[in-house]
């Protein structure tokens, strides 16, 4: 499924892309090429970007989206979609602020509570999708509305309370180091999450997850309990959203708008990484690279001092172009199907 097919690659494609695709699997070469190009662009504009401190700042900024993209990857590769992560992040941050209320001693229990809440939301999403057979777009859209409404209803639009210093550490703190000055906790967390995700995808669970996304019926006939696998994917996504909430809460603090639009950013990142909506194809590393690319794009826009209003347009163009390029690459091995061919029968 994710196996590279170097034999079918067109010789015209750039060498770098070919090597990258051999390393990381089919369809995801585009994102690595794009990431390199964008980083090169940033470096050309501002050579000091490659110095460790500013690189670390970039990582700290990008960490939440990478974590969210990894969570979204589990769901998307299983053939589903999770639109509720953005409002879940917002709700979790608000919960943390209201319950901790500045008391250091409450950090641990509240973190535990947030984890339980995240698992619960994932379970509800997963069970409604798998047992009640509601399409995940609708399930998670409904969950998004419910969480958004409940969040605003509870806080009245203005979150109260404050986060404790310990809670904010993972998002903005770090270890003092000689070279990079401050090695952020978020980088360590990120590395741990990525390693865990890669390991999970290599374990039987990960294989089964991809199989379910590729062909649900075939997986079911081979003895996979599809509903369990998919529900677990939703739980993983919600847990990742909880972790992202901790990182964002620490990094950016508490506002009513936390998490808005993150669901689309995460889905964009995953798809940019060559993971196919509909499931069964793509790697978690590529999804992570997709998230980094999205964040690097924003940094590049900053460097270019592009007016903030034009940014969405550039973002939209790049996403469509990148996915179109990846789709062209992917469809090459298969015999091309041309819609516009002249049919003998006009009827």
């Amino acid at each position, binding site marked *: 499924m994710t196996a590279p097919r170097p034999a079918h690659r067109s010789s015209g494609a750039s060498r770098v892309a070919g090597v990258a695709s051999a390393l990381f699997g089919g369809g995801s070469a585009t994102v690595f090429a794009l990431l390199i190009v964008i980083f090169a662009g940033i470096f050309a504009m501002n050579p000091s970007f490659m110095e460790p401190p500013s690189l670390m700042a970039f990582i700290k900024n990008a960490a939440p989206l990478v974590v969210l993209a990894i969570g979204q990857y589990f769901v998307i590769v299983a053939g589903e979609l999770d639109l509720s992560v953005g409002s879940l992040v917002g709700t979790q941050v608000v919960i943390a602020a209201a319950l901790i209320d500045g008391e250091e001693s409450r950090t641990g229990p509240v973190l535990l509570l947030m984890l339980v809440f995240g698992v619960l939301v994932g379970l509800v999403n997963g069970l*409604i999708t798998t047992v*009640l*057979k*509601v*399409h995940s*777009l*609708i*399930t998670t*859209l*409904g*969950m*998004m*509305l*419910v969480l*958004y*409404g*409940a*969040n*605003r*209803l509870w806080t009245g*639009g203005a979150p109260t309370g404050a986060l404790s210093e310990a809670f904010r550490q993972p998002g903005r703190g770090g270890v003092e180091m000689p070279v990079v000055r401050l090695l952020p906790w978020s980088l360590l967390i990120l590395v741990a999450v990525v390693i865990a995700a890669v390991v999970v995808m290599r374990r039987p669970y990960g294989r089964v997850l991809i199989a379910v996304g590729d062909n649900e019926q075939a997986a079911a006939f081979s003895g996979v309990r599809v509903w369990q696998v998919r529900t677990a994917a939703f739980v993983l996504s919600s847990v990742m959203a909880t972790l992202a909430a901790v990182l964002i809460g620490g990094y950016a603090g508490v506002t009513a708008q936390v998490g808005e639009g993150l669901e*689309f950013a995460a*889905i*964009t990142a995953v*798809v940019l990484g060559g993971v*196919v*909506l*509909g499931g069964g194809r793509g790697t978690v590393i590529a999804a992570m690279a997709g998230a980094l690319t999205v964040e690097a794009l924003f940094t590049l826009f900053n460097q270019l001092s592009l*007016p*903030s*209003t*034009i*940014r*969405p*347009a*550039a*973002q*939209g*163009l790049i*996403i*469509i172009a990148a*996915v*179109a390029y990846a*789709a*062209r690459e992917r*469809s090459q091995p298969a*015999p091309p*199907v*041309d*819609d*516009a*061919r*002249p*049919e*003998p*029968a006009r*009827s």
Partner: protein
Amino acid sequence: MSTTVDTATAMPSRRRRLGTTELVYMALLGVVVIGAVIVAISGGNLLSTANTVEMLSRSSLLGFVALGQTFVILCRSLDLSVGYVMALSSLIGATTMAGDPARIPLGIAAVVLVAGGIGLANGLIIAVLKVNPFITTLGMGLIIKGYLDTRYKGPAGAVPEAFRQFGYTRIGFVPLSAAVMLLAMAAGIAYLRTSRTGYHMYAVGGSEDVARLSGIRTGRVMITAHVLCSIAAGVAGLLIAARFGTGSALVYSSGYELDSIAAVVLGGTFLMGGRGGVAGTLAGVLILAELDTVFNVLQVDPFFKEVLRGVVIIAAVAIYARRQVERRATRARFGGDGDDGGTGPGRAPDRPPDSTAGGADGDQVVAGHGGDR
């Protein structure tokens, strides 16, 4: 043998498909009755003229968007750019008209042209470049958002008084906008049921590969659906301009794209394409509008409204999904019985004629390919 099986499965499935639309209208009736009772208990009257007018004018805006969304969802596509198209259309309409009644047709033409162009671009990217519809329309929405934010700093343009009548006139208790929306819905039903492209939309949504092998130009169908969808969103944008008296970019943050998808799915149209119709969508739109009216009359907290809406949408779709699961289960059992009950071995001799026929079809297609290249 195969024909008997076909009719045996086709008959109940047709009867049940009718049932789904009926179910949606029964749900609408239920919402109206329950809403009326609850409102009556709290001392109001849901069916009063004022409330009915409010419900209908609420529904007209979402109605246009959902009508267009129905076409693309039937094709197993999706349009997340409709909210931005609405905002852009309201601005283009208002600035082109510029308060001059003589320029009304020009304004409408400009909106239809621009919205149609956006739909064309969406359709082409999806059909030719094979980009996932979700990403295509999300990206297109971002592009339009960037343009809107850069070009327009606030409300722009002015709508002449004559055109504002589109937003405010009433015929009896039916607002003109709702009447136009109902006419558009009727046209949509007729289009899907009688036109060739309408039938092709169901075929493409059911299975694009099968549709293509049957000689349907799937790309064109997909593009048509997207053009219609964007034009419908453009009309909704014109309605906004008529109501506000000016064009406004802020409409895109109202979440019409997700609302319209919810309305379509609430109307019993299958999100994975090929099943459903405009009649159900109309009921879905009316259900959402009626719920909003009830919440408004009862003065429910606007945020609690969101929670309720989320729960209602999930619950309704869960009910339809149950029916679909039951139907699929029946069909699978039919197939399974046929395979297990002696036909399995008996089928092998049947196969050759079938497969040669298939082979001949395949040859034609391949020949078509060869000629093309």
